[in-house]
Structure formats: C-alpha cells, structure tokens
C-alpha cells in the first residue's frame, strides 16, 4: 500500500473515530439541551410579546439567535468530520487510479488530511470565539486545502479516464 493511501485510510479511520466520539458526546450532553433552549427562547419571546414586555422578548430572540448560531456549527462539525473521514477512506481505496506522481499523491493526501482536521476544528472554534480570526482562518484555510486536494484528485482520475 502506497504512503498516500496509508495517509488517507488511516487518517480517515482516526478522524471518523474522533468525529463519532465528538458526536456521541454532543448527542448525550449538548444536543437535547440546545434544542430545548432554542424552543424555550422562542416560546418565551412570544409569551413576553403577548404580555407586552417587548424588551424582554428581544432578549429572548437574541438568546435564540445565539444558541442557533452555536447549534448549526456544532452539527456541522460532527457531520463534516465524519463526512470528510468517509471521503478520505473512499479516496484512499481508489487512489491508485489517480494518475498523479507518487510525491504529488502524497502531497494531496497530506493536504486532504490537514484540511479535514482544520476545517471542522475552525468551525468548532467559531462557537467559542464567535468568529474570531483564528477560527475563521482554520475554517477557510482547511476548506481551501480540501477543495484543492479534491480538485487535484479529480484531475488525476480524469487523466486516467481519458
């Protein structure tokens, strides 16, 4: 098995395990509480509106928006980590068919691994820093690495196909 395939397959399995553990922790300790919080905030906002207490209603709407901002990203982290892991394993299985040189294959595999770790990590950091430079840098840089690796892989498969 080539080094590039090992990076993709082992990296993918490790990332999938990490993503599943994160998902398990999230499902048991965070998700239900977060969903309850979102529902409660909206209900309380409208109940306050019915009582004509609009400043408090606004506070609940902002609370809802803040919780949803985190919820969307936490779900994205889980699904992207596992999705990227599956993609790495599948590409690892097929990587011999990518018409790229050995060193380029290794570079693509390393970029894919680095991007697949950094992109969801950046999204997770966004929930802590609410979009700080470091978090955005990880998310944007990671996704750029994944896209670049995928582009090169598609090029390799297309070259083999033609």
């Amino acid at each position: 098995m080539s080094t590039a395939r090992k990076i993709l397959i082992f990296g993918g399995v490790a990332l999938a395990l990490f993503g599943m553990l994160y998902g398990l922790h999230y499902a048991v300790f965070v998700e239900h509480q977060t969903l309850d919080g979102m529902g409660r905030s909206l209900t309380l906002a409208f109940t306050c509106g019915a009582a004509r207490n609009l400043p408090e209603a606004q506070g609940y709407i902002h609370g809802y928006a803040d919780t949803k901002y985190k919820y969307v990203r936490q779900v994205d982290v889980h699904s992207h980590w596992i999705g990227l892991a599956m993609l790495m394993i599948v590409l690892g299985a097929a990587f011999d068919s990518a018409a790229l040189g050995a060193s380029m294959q290794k570079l693509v595999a390393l970029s894919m691994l680095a991007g697949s770790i950094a992109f969801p990590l950046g999204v997770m950091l966004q929930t802590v820093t609410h979009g700080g430079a470091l978090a955005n840098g990880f998310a944007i840089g990671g996704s750029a690495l994944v896209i670049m690796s995928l582009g090169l892989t598609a090029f390799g498969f297309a070259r083999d196909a033609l």
Partner: protein
Amino acid sequence: MAVWGPTSPQGLEARLTQASGRPNPVQVAGTFSAMSAKRLLVFGGIALIAGGMLFGDIFAVFVLHQNGGETGAALLAATQAVAAQDGSAVQKSFAHIGALLEDRGTKVDTHVHMSDAGYLALLLALIQPYVALGGAKKKLLAIMFLAGGVALPVGIFLIHYVGLAHSPFAAIGWASVLADSAGALMIVALAGFAWGLLKHFASKREGTLEPELIRDRSWERRALLSGGTLLILAGFLHGAWYSWAQLYEHEARETRILTTMLDAAASNQAAVAAQSVNDFGMLAAQRAVQIAGHSHFIEFGLLAVLLSFVQPYIFLGAIWKRRWVKLLLLGSVLLPVFVLLELKLGLVAGGLADVGGLLVIVALIGMLAGVLRCTGELDSRDGELP
C-alpha cells in the same frame, strides 16, 4: 475460509484481467465468494441506499411542502395569539410547531440514516480484505451491521408516531429505544471490524487475508470515479460559497424577521406580522435548498465513487452497464441542480429534482439486479471453478 494471495495490480488480479480491462469470471468468483461478509455488505449497502433514496423522494413529494405550510400556519397563529395577549395560545402554537418540526426532522433523519448506513456498508465491503477475522465472524458482524442499518431508520421514523406510549422512561419512547439499540448494534459491528483491521496492520503479514475487490480499468469504473469526484468537488465549492456569501446574512435576517414579527404582532399590525411569517418561511426554504444542494452533490459523488468498486460484479451487457452509470450520473447532477433552482423555477424545478432522484434509484436497482445475476451465475457454476 481465508485466502492468502497477492493484492498488487501486478499480482493475480493483473494476470487474470482480460485484455479488455474487464475481469474474468474466475477472478470475480475468487473475490466475491457465496454468502461472504463482502457480498452481504455489497447487497445490503446498495439496497439500503436505494431504500433511503426512495423514502427521501416520497418524503419530498408528499410531506415536505405540506409540513412547511402547516408550520407557517402555526407560526401565524402564534402571532395572532400575541396580538390577542393570549399567553396560553402562544404556548399551544409553539407546542404544535415543535410537533411539526419533530415530524419533519425524524423523516429527514430516516432518509439520511438509511442512505448513510448503505454508504458505510459499501465502505466496509471495500475494507474486508484487511479485516483479520475468520469468515464466520465477519459474516456475523456484517449481519449485525445490516440489521442495525435497517432497524435504526425504522426506529427513527416511528419516534413521531409512537411518542412516549407505554414507555417506562420519562423522556425516551420505545421507538427511540429501538433506534438507540440499533445504533449500538452498528457501533459494536464497526468496533469488531476495526479490531480486525488493527489485527491485520499490527501483524507483519504480507498481503491480505482475502483478495481485494477487483480494480478493473473499465469505462464504467473510470466514469464513476472521475464523475463522482467532480460531484464531490462541486458540493464543496457550493458549500464554501454558501458559508461565505449567505450563511451569516441568513442568520442576521432570521433575527430581524423574528423581531419585526413580534413587534408587529404586539402592536396589532396583522398584515405586517403575516408578511413576516411569509418571510420567515421563505428564509427557511432558502436555507433548506442550499443545504440540500450541497449535501446531495457530495452524497451522490461519494455514491458514484463507491459504486465504481462494484462494477466488476455487475453481470450485465456492456451497453446496460454504461446505461446505468450514465443514468446515475445524470440523476446525480439533476437532483442537486434543480433543488438549488427550486425557489427560482418553482414546481417545475421541484419535479425535475424528484425525477433526478428517481433516475438514481432506477440506476441503483439496475446495478443491484446485475450484482444478483453475478452471484446467481457464480453460485450455479461453483463446482466447475478451478
């Protein structure tokens, strides 16, 4: 029985591969033995994906839009309750919205979990040669995984209908228990396969325990590999564009709409409140189509790449094999593209997206029939093989 053999393209595979780039039946039989874990996972995987997609298509046609309409009506009732200063009616409306969201959410989850269990099954079929366990153990793990893959979406689907009826738990119903147990069964099976993988790579064994799935260089395989990767790339590019251009704007707009809705309801401006409810529904639809477009591009791409490995086991004429591949790729492009155009082109785009989904389902069933023919032919001539 474990088969020890060379795995490199220069080994047995390459020697047996015919000049056309297609494998011969002896080679196919050696890598796809009767009732093996690999065969079960390939069958089960394709069937689960086809089932998950069929459910998704039915959901999109018969449930999705109706559910959205009812949610909008419940939100409008909540604004009217605010205008009437009726706190208990507000609570009732939101309880109704919660039930509608649960109805929709469990159906989306059923579709996603059934399809994803299928993808995982195909993925597990690929790694079987590296799983250092006996044939019977592998088969048991495969059966456990597939049983969990069927029971998990069934359990999720039933959550909304069974609720907490006859449940001994305060917050978890029997359907959730079924879904969670099925999930646990799948985790145990995955852990078993992972243990086998670890054993294989920890040993200093040359080659694999059984032959890898054949890697031919047929047109079908190359088209699925390159087409699938391009679809995944398109999905990633679209996702990056969405998060850059629309995600934050959508989040800010949602807060603005809710504020306007509440202010209008509290000041008895019924028309403004109703418009805000419409705006809220439109925003939800805009988000939903972008996310559905993004995820379907990637999922269909992954499916195409996974199916490229199964091509040597589809015993159909070359013309039919190509037809199914073309149909699958065509449907894989049509569905996400027309989902994204749904808000611009309306029902026509929605219908074309559903047709795209149907094309993928038909292609999957066609390929599954080809795999069935392959196993039938191999098993019937089993005794004649060298």
